[in-house]
């Protein structure tokens, strides 16, 4: 006997415990199977692009901190890169190394959160997340040592960084970096061999290579689908061409591959930080930049490999103190375009896990 069902529209969000913020999805369900999904944005649209046009180049760094609040250092890096390109500013060696260390630490911290929340949504309620938070707090301690803030750092400045590291920073970093691989391996062993986790992630939410490229997906989600594209290798910025590291690439493109990418990338980030610590020269941390910067007329696009994908800033200058146009290429926002492809045809219980595996931050999606 077969039952006839009618399509049924269900809202998830904007207030929903597992939407990583204010995000809303309108599901059309046939029984338990998703027929269609529409992401609805804008519940955190704060008008950063407009507000940034009213402040000068240095002041705009604070807006980038609050975009993707889990990866503030990376946002700073992308923005100052664009401004330095626009104004033709050189950055001292030591500052470049400090930037690399900070952004790679930020990547580890962001991936820890992604994995933690993904497992939370898989049903491992809170326990793995608490362990991830324990490790993240140690990274935040390191950042606090450097710039006194826990979440919004404003550390990278145009032409350098705001202050040099204190004496006790490098030993503390070394202690942390030495202990981290053991922790990651332990979590990975506990989780990746877990039957439930494998059942719920393998071959679910497969993103095909062609679709990923066609939808402009970037970051770990793109690499999980088998595309070897990392801005650090493809278009090396800062001093990434000096480091020896691998780009992990997935084969299937399912949730498990996306989870795997994050674990592997943490190991690669540790490798980069170790090399940067060994090579770091002493010297200046800030080049001479006018107090009120007036870049020449023109435009520049600075992009980096942020933890969530390619983050870019497209700036247009009219020769005045404020940017004429301040556009962000938001990685999480663009990655969400594959949501419909991934979720159509799966059960509603998997939808939240798929959503968690894309890894978004609403501050960046809506800006």
């Amino acid at each position, binding site marked *: 006997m077969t039952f006839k069902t009618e399509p049924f529209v269900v809202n998830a969000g904007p207030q929903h415990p597992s939407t990583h913020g204010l995000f809303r999805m309108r599901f059309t369900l046939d029984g338990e199977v998703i027929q269609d999904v529409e992401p609805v*944005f804008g519940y955190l649209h704060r008008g950063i692009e407009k507000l940034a046009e009213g402040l000068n180049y240095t002041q705009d760094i604070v807006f980038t901190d609050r975009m993707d609040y889990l990866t503030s250092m990376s946002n700073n890096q992308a923005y100052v890169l664009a401004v330095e390109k626009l104004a033709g500013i050189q950055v001292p060696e030591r500052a470049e190394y400090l930037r690399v260390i900070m952004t790679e630490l930020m990547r580890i911290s962001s991936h820890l959160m992604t994995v933690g929340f993904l497992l939370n949504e898989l049903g491992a309620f809170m326990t793995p997340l608490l362990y991830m938070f324990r490790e993240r707090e140690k990274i935040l301690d390191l950042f606090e040592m450097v710039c006194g803030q826990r979440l919004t750092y404003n550390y990278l400045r145009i032409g350098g960084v705001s202050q040099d590291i204190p004496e006790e920073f490098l030993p503390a970093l070394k202690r942390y970096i030495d202990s981290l691989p053991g922790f990651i391996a332990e979590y990975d062993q506990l989780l990746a061999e877990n039957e439930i986790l494998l059942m719920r992630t393998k071959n679910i939410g497969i993103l095909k290579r062609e679709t990923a490229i*066609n*939808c402009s997906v970037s970051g770990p989600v793109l690499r999980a689908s088998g595309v070897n594209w990392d801005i650090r290798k493809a278009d090396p910025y800062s001093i990434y061409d000096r480091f020896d590291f691998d780009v992990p690439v997935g084969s299937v493109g399912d949730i498990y591959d996306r989870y795997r990418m994050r674990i592997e990338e943490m190991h690669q980030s540790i490798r980069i930080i170790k090399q940067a610590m060994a090579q770091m020269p002493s010297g200046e941390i800030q080049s001479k930049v006018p107090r009120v910067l007036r870049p020449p007329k023109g435009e520049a696009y600075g992009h980096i490999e942020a933890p969530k994908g390619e983050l870019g800033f497209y700036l247009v200058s009219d020769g005045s103190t404020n940017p004429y146009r301040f556009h962000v290429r938001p990685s999480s926002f*663009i990655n969400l*375009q594959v949501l419909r492809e991934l979720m159509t045809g799966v059960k509603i219980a998997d939808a939240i896990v798929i959503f968690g595996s894309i890894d978004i931050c609403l501050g960046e999606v809506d800006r």
Partner: protein
Amino acid sequence: MTLALPATEISAKLETQFPGSLVDSSGNTIVVKPESIFQIASFLKNTPGFDFDYLNFITAVDYNTYFEVVYYLVSLEHNHGLILKTRCTNRENPTVPSVVSLWNGANFQEREVYDLMGIKFEGHPNLKRIMLWEGFQGHPLRKDFKLQ
């Protein structure tokens, strides 16, 4: 290093293929007429040697007298990039053909440009506001939209 393709090389090819559609070319930027943007984008995507399979971002800039829509195209295969621009002078009803049928990556970004800058993309499957709500007056990223 993502190679910035020299515009002069491409513009010569485009000029023979689509005569009279180019407005300007300098550095790695090509400016084309809005009515021919779809054909040129399609040509750049499908021609061997260019293979711009990846649409990095779309944005728009308000220059008071005209709007400039900016497309940054990248080829993952050859690792080169190109900035494609188009200008529309009509301030009341600026219209540009949509490229969603070439790259699905344009879908939300075109909606965002429509929402915040008020440029209509002809042929977009579902052009409606994305960040702001239906009923919001004006387009905030235009230069004549003043904050309180």
